[in-house]
């Protein structure tokens, strides 16, 4: 997995720790150790997201947290030009994107490490992690350097 990015990296919104549920806790535990994990069905071998107790595809209850590649592409994105919270005002502009992982699931995330004006639909990206609190990290994606 990629190394943590310095917190001084620009174009990333202030990010607050999520409030996990018992079902989602393993996902955030994975982020905390800088590993992206998604539930995979032991029966049909397909991935399910968001966290669940049942495979979205075949309804099996045998879903197992599985590390994924962290590779994907930008499915779509939007650049925030307006702050919805005072604390975000000095973070503008920042990019909220939907990344489609090579394994299939699509995640809401931030696109970081490049100017917002350079982000494109279809752009290949890799996961990075941002330690936002003690034992808590959030995923983001940055353009892949080939």
């Amino acid at each position, binding site marked *: 997995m990629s190394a943590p990015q310095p917190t001084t990296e620009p174009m990333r919104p202030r990010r607050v*720790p999520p409030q996990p549920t018992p079902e989602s806790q393993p996902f955030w535990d994975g982020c905390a150790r800088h590993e992206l994990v998604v539930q995979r069905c032991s029966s049909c071998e397909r991935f399910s997201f968001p966290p669940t107790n049942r495979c979205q595809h075949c309804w099996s209850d045998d879903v197992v947290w599985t590390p994924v590649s962290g590779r994907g592409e930008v499915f779509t994105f939007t650049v925030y030009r307006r702050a919805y919270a005072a604390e975000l005002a000095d973070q503008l502009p920042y990019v909220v994107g939907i990344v489609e992982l090579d394994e299939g699931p699509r995640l809401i995330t931030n696109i970081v490490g490049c100017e917002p004006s350079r982000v494109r639909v279809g752009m290949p990206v890799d996961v990075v992690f941002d330690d936002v609190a003690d034992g808590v990290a959030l995923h983001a994606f940055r353009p892949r350097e080939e």
Partner: protein
Amino acid sequence: MYQRSAAIVGAAHSELGEVPGSTGLGLMADAAVAAVADAGLKPSDIDGVVVRGPDDEYAFQQQLGERLGLNAAFSTSLDNGGASQTLAVILASLAIEAGLATTVLCGYGRNSWTRTRQAGSRRARMNQSTHNRAREWRDSFGYFGEPATHALGAQRHMAMYGTTKEHLGHVAISVREHATRNPHAQMQTPLTMEEYLAGRPVTDPFGVYDCSLRTDAAGAVVVTSLDRARDLPHTPVVVRGFGSHNNLQGWTVDDHMVTTAAKQSGERAYRIADVTPADIDTAQLYDCFTYMVLAQIEDYGFCEKGDGGEFIAGGALALDGAIPTNTSGGQLSEGHVEGMLQVVEGVRQLRHEYPEERQVPDARLALVSGHGGNTVCHTTLILERG
């Protein structure tokens, strides 16, 4: 199959715009009283109530019944977001045809502008999503507000089909043009492309003119049997058909944000009503954002998928255009009442109530849409001049 036996006989909205001190329930009561009066009916005629209130209000139908002294054979509050208001008319029509109720009051009320002004509320609302799930998966990434959800769809549409910011501008400008002839509209000044493009940016590709308004208002309609409707004062507006579709797996799944649930909902509605897109004289579409008009114009088959931008830029939405759309100004320029005013406008156009400058000539069929519930629920009405 539905026998086309229900009709809308009353339609009204409350005071609309910035109504200081208003409540959603109070406005809803005002619209309900006006709609029942418009229908030429009395309170005891109402035996069905299907409504929706602000999302944090439980059992809004009970609150309204208490306020207006109504019991009901058939009643519920709906939870399909912006798709609920057209769904209310669908449920009313089905209940009437099935004999479960005879005359159903449908409506929605909100006081969004007033709420925004209440001390502390703005900050609280902006800083945290209402639902636990959104807090977990959105707020942590700075994903706040409804504009972003629709902007994500717009950006994808732009990437796939070459749709431009100017195309979205033509939606805003077209509906504003309609609003200049609506004395109730919140925005009555014409909008130029230059002003549109200079609008305060929100979240790409949206600026302020891509976003619907904050409105205090309610709308209501009364639905009854077509037989009964013929004895009432207004030309009946027949509920000729309807459809719905719900992409419950989510907005970000498959291609839902580019080909929306309007497509399947529209196909069902056309089939049940036995009409085609070419038969529709006016469309009243759920326009929470400019992009949603463009997507629905395509999804409803008024043009091909991907051609919406050029179609609209060519004047399609105007009163003399290919499909006069949101002729009241819609939620972008008249006021945002979660689709309820679209139902009211559809009824008024089919009654030929307006002066020539605002009337769709010889309007016989209107398509009305509702969209919401995390942008995945969609409902369609096809209304016909009786």
